[in-house]
Every structure is written in structure tokens, then in C-alpha cells.
């Protein structure tokens, strides 16, 4: 939606963005908090970088948690050390850029986004954020055919709000520039080999169930390419000398995984290290399975 060039023509979907190998262009990591989304999206970006891909890791600065948070800063630092490029999108900047291009005036755009009415519009309709962010992401992918974006998205509810936002908005806006653009965004998102969603979960029955429910909800409107990835598994550490409670914990885990086997694409072992950088590095080789 938001063009980085000066043109304010609509997005062109008949683009030259051919898929590279079997890569998708836009990877969304989602799932409940604390399941390792950020770590995995970072390792995944590192994996693509090692393959000499033009990859960027995307954050939304939508939540107050992101700003100045230690976690966020630690991630930035890790990314920096690993040589992974990070793109943090700021909502109002994206919105202002979009309006400026539509109205062909930066002055009017900066005035509009400062009005209480506009802020309320964004606040009352959180999905609005995501249309703006997604527009920015799609435009960047359009402008640079070699670019691959990895999104470390907020917890599951939000990812769903994001994916449904485009559908909701083409229903909300029946005409006008945004309407045309959300239509284009939808068809863009639904191109083959364009979006890949990795739903991250942990090996408990409830979490696996929730991941499957999330997948179903996402798929209600359109069958995206989705993998469920179970993180922090202990099963490969099973041995005779473990104490009973751990044996039982692992047995439960194996059964929970077994019950969901049909829907579960990937499992990733708990890494026995406490240092973040070596954790991310150890995970890199297994990231092939999330492509």
C-alpha cells in the first residue's frame, strides 16, 4: 500500500517476483507468547542469510511492550551480532507515508495523522494498524523482488486480526483508494509461494490443540501455507536413567505429539544452553524445516 517510490499508482500484481527456489516471500511466525517465536524467527532469518538470501526480520512497534523493552533490545543486539537486518515499522510513519502518496502532499498527510479523529480511527479499529503495516510490507516486497521478509508477529489473536484485517477492510471500504489497495493486498497475499505461516507451539496437549485451532481459524477465509512447529521438546533426551517424573513428562509429550501428528510438521528440541547467541546458532541448521 505504501510506496517507497514517489509513484502513487496502485500496486501492480503482475510483477516479476518469481519465487526463489521453493522459498516464500513473506514468513509469519505466530503463536502464544513465550513459545520461542522471537528466537525462532531470528534463527530462521539467520538461516536464510547463510543461504545468501536478501532477508530482513520485521517487528511492529505496535505494542508498548516493544518500545524500549529489554527483550526487544536484546533481540536487536542478537540480530546485530548475527548480521541479520532488522526492520522495525512505525505505525504513524507508515500511515503518513501512505496518505501522503495518495493525496500527493506530505503537509496534508502530517496534518491528518495528528488529528484526534484519525488517532481514534486507528485506536478504535486495531485492524487498521495491520492494513497499514501489511501495505508497507507488500510494497517493500514489490519494490525489491529478491527480498524475503520474516515477521515476528504479536501473539496469536493479533496475527489473526492481522490476516482478517484485509478481508474486513475490503468489506468496510466499498470504494476509494484504500478499497482498491486492500483488494490488491488480498490477491497479493494469496499468490502461490508468497505467504508462509509458521505457528509455533510447545509440546502440551492444550498448546498443540490451540495451535490447531489457530490454523483452522486462519484457514477459514483462505488456505494459506501453514506449518505447526512444536518447540522445546524433550523427547530426544529420553533415557532409562531419568527420574520417574521426567519419564512421565516425556511420555505425555510423546503422546500429545502423537495425537496431533497429522497436523504437526516440525518438532524442535529444547536446546541445553543458557546463552542466547549460542542458542540461536544451534537452532540455525534445523530451520530448513520451516521454509
Amino acid at each position, binding site marked *: 500500500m505504501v510506496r517507497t517510490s514517489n509513484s502513487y499508482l496502485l500496486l501492480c500484481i503482475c510483477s516479476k517476483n518469481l519465487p526463489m527456489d521453493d522459498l516464500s516471500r513473506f514468513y509469519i511466525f505466530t*503463536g*502464544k*507468547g*513465550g*513459545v520461542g517465536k522471537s528466537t525462532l524467527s531470528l534463527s530462521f532469518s539467520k538461516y536464510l542469510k547463510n543461504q545468501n538470501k536478501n532477508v530482513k526480520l520485521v517487528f511492529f512497534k505496535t*505494542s*508498548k*511492550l516493544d518500545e524500549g*523493552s*529489554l*527483550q526487544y533490545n536484546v533481540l536487536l543486539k542478537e540480530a546485530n551480532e548475527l548480521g541479520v537486518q532488522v526492520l522495525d515499522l512505525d505505525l504513524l510513519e507508515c500511515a503518513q507515508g501512505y496518505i501522503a502518496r*495518495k*493525496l500527493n502532499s506530505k503537509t*496534508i498527510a502530517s496534518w*491528518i495523522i495528528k*488529528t*484526534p479523529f*484519525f*488517532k*481514534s*480511527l486507528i*485506536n*478504535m*479499529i486495531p*485492524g*487498521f494498524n495491520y492494513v497499514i503495516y501489511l501495505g508497507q510490507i507488500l510494497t517493500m516486497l514489490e519494490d525489491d523482488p529478491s527480498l524475503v521478509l520474516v515477521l515476528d508477529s504479536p*501473539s496469536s*489473536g*493479533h496475527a*489473526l*486480526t492481522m490476516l*482478517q484485517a484485509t478481508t*474486513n477492510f475490503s468489506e*468496510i*471500504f*466499498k*470504494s*476509494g*483508494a*484504500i*478499497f482498491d489497495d486492500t483488494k490488491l493486498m488480498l490477491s497479493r497475499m494469496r499468490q502461490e509461494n508468497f505467504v508462509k505461516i509458521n505457528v509455533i*507451539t*510447545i509440546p502440551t*496437549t*492444550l498448546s498443540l*490443540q490451540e495451535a490447531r*485451532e489457530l490454523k483452522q481459524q486462519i484457514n477459514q477465509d483462505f488456505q494459506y501455507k501453514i506449518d505447526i512447529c512444536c518447540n*522445546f521438546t524433550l523427547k530426544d*533426551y529420553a*533415557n532409562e*536413567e*531419568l*527420574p520417574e*517424573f*521426567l519419564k512421565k*513428562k516425556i511420555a*505425555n509429550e510423546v503422546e500429545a505429539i502423537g495425537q496431533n501428528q497429522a497436523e504437526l510438521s516440525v518438532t524442535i528440541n529444547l536446546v*541445553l*544452553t*543458557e546463552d542466547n547467541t549460542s542458542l540461536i546458532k544451534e537452532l540455525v541448521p534445523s530451520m530448513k524445516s520451516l521454509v
Partner: protein
Amino acid sequence: MSQLNKQFEIFSGTGGVGKTTLATSRAIELARSGNRVLLITIDPAKRLKDLLKLEGEGEVIQVTDPLSEGENLELFVELMNPEKTFARMAKESNAEEVLQNRIVSILTRPYGGLNEILSIVELNMNYLSGKYDTIVLDTPPGSHFLDFLDATQRIQVFFDKSFVDIFNYLGKKTDLTGVNIGKKIFNKVISSGIKKLLSYLSKVTGDQFVDEFIEAVLAIYKTKSSFLAALQLQQTLKDDKYSNWFLVTSVEQNKLEEALQLKAHAKGLITNKSYMVLNKCIENELMKWSPSADHKNYKLKETLLNRERHLKKSLKDSFEKVLEFPEVISLSPLDHLKGLTQTWKNC
């Protein structure tokens, strides 16, 4: 634990840490000690719904004790549904026609964007009904939870600022009979340039949207009494005479940082006095285990143990009251409820 029992018991936390199961077990334990309890939950997994035999959404349902079939408890559960909440608000305001508005119905879908605001309203409506000793609220996870807290402020900004803007504009061209707008708002005439703003916006969003959005705003405005009533609830929620806040995290999901961030941002709500609940502790079990230092299991034990100890230490640095819940190692959600209910009882 009954001495801790307050009018509101709010469970917030980082998602996927057993928050909903903890809130449910707390509600069961309070009901078992003779309280009339309402549990409001948002988006639980299907297995938990099955366990409580919850079918409909957006209605308060009395449930039997899931732990011991047939026991008579005054335990009520409501599965939050934004559409139904908004429909009730419209009915209370005698403005059911607003439900016909296309944009309103899109916005009040689950995930349509008004989830958090409407759950505050729902909480307040049930509180005002005066039917319950305690309302246990399971809030949306993670940053959703912050939206939940921000919701009341958003209501304020929306009704204060946007409406003044819009009515200044509308007052000149629309017949507002039937819309009950206070004189005060009309008198607050500010040259806000809203007309110009809307004409610019219509270039981007289309004319039809601008008109329909104004209609939607008017529709929401008609239900404003429920929103504004919900605003007053925030004061009560802040007061530890009336509210217990439980911030939940788990050993398995190291979300220490996120928990501390929640505390930092939930100003005045989550404080040192809030309960920090650490779920899925296995330290006691691990301590009974001594693999030899040259065995590969040694590293496993050390990793698991250090992870938990580090977490506990940091939590105790920030919270006066840390409740530890041992992990219930079972596949059955019923066992989890049982185990957690027992721990509440022993607290």
C-alpha cells in the same frame, strides 16, 4: 485462601502459560468455599470448553463442578462474545437499530477489533448486576492484555475528541433528532477543520466510507452510556480493597521479561502487591534427582534447574507475593484443574 477473596480477581499474563486453567481452578475453589462466582473467559481452547460443558457464547451459564459430577456450586461461566455484548448494550440504550449498521457489525466480530473494549463493558455489566460475590476474569494474553487496559482510556479519547469533531461537522448538515447529544458537546465548538479532514479522507477511503463511518460512530455513540459506565470501573479495579491481580507466567515459557514489562506498563494495576503466579514448577522434583556429573543427564538437570531458579529469583526481586504452582504432569485437563484447585486450597 478465602481471606484473599475479593470482588474482582483478574488473571493476566503472557499467554500459553495455563492462565485460563488457573483462572478456572481459582473460580472452582472460590465457588467450593461457598462463594457465588462468575468466570468470564476469552477464547479458551476447545478442551477447556468441553470440560466446563460450555456451548453457547456470550451468555452466562451455570455449570456443575467439573471435578465432582453433580455437586451444587454457584459457579457461572461466560464465554466472551463481542457481538452479543454489543447487542446487549444496544438493547439497554433502546437503540437496537444500530445493530443494522454494516461497519458496526464488522467491528464487533470476534477479532474485529473491539474485543478488549467490549470485555471491560461486559465485566462492568455483570458487576452492576450485583449477582456475584466474585468475578474472575481471564484477560486476553500478552499485549492484548495491554489493549485491555488501554481500552478505558481509548473510550475516553474517542468520546471526548472525535465526537466533538464529528458533531461539529455533522451539526451543520445532518438532522440529529433521535440522537441524544448533550448540549455540552454542541457548545464545545472548536474550529477543528473536521470538514476539511473528512474531505481529504474521502479521497483515500471513498465517499461512501466516510458517510457510513460517521453513521457507525453515531451508532456507537448511542450506546455510550455503557462505555462511560465501564470507565468508572477502572478506579475499582485499581483499588486493592476490591481487586486481586494475578500475573501468571510459567517455568516452561521464560517470559520473565514480558511479565516485568506488563508490570511496568499496567501502571497502578499490577504493583508489588499483585500476586505473581509461577506455574509448572519442577524444582522440588529435580532436587530429588542426582545424575552423575559425567552423564549427559547432568547437563539436562542443570539446564532445567537453573532456568527455574533464575526465574524465581528475578520474580522475587520484583514481587512481594510469588505463588508457586507445581507442574501437574498429566495429559488430562481434568487432572490439571484438580491439581491447581488443590494448590489454591493449600495457599
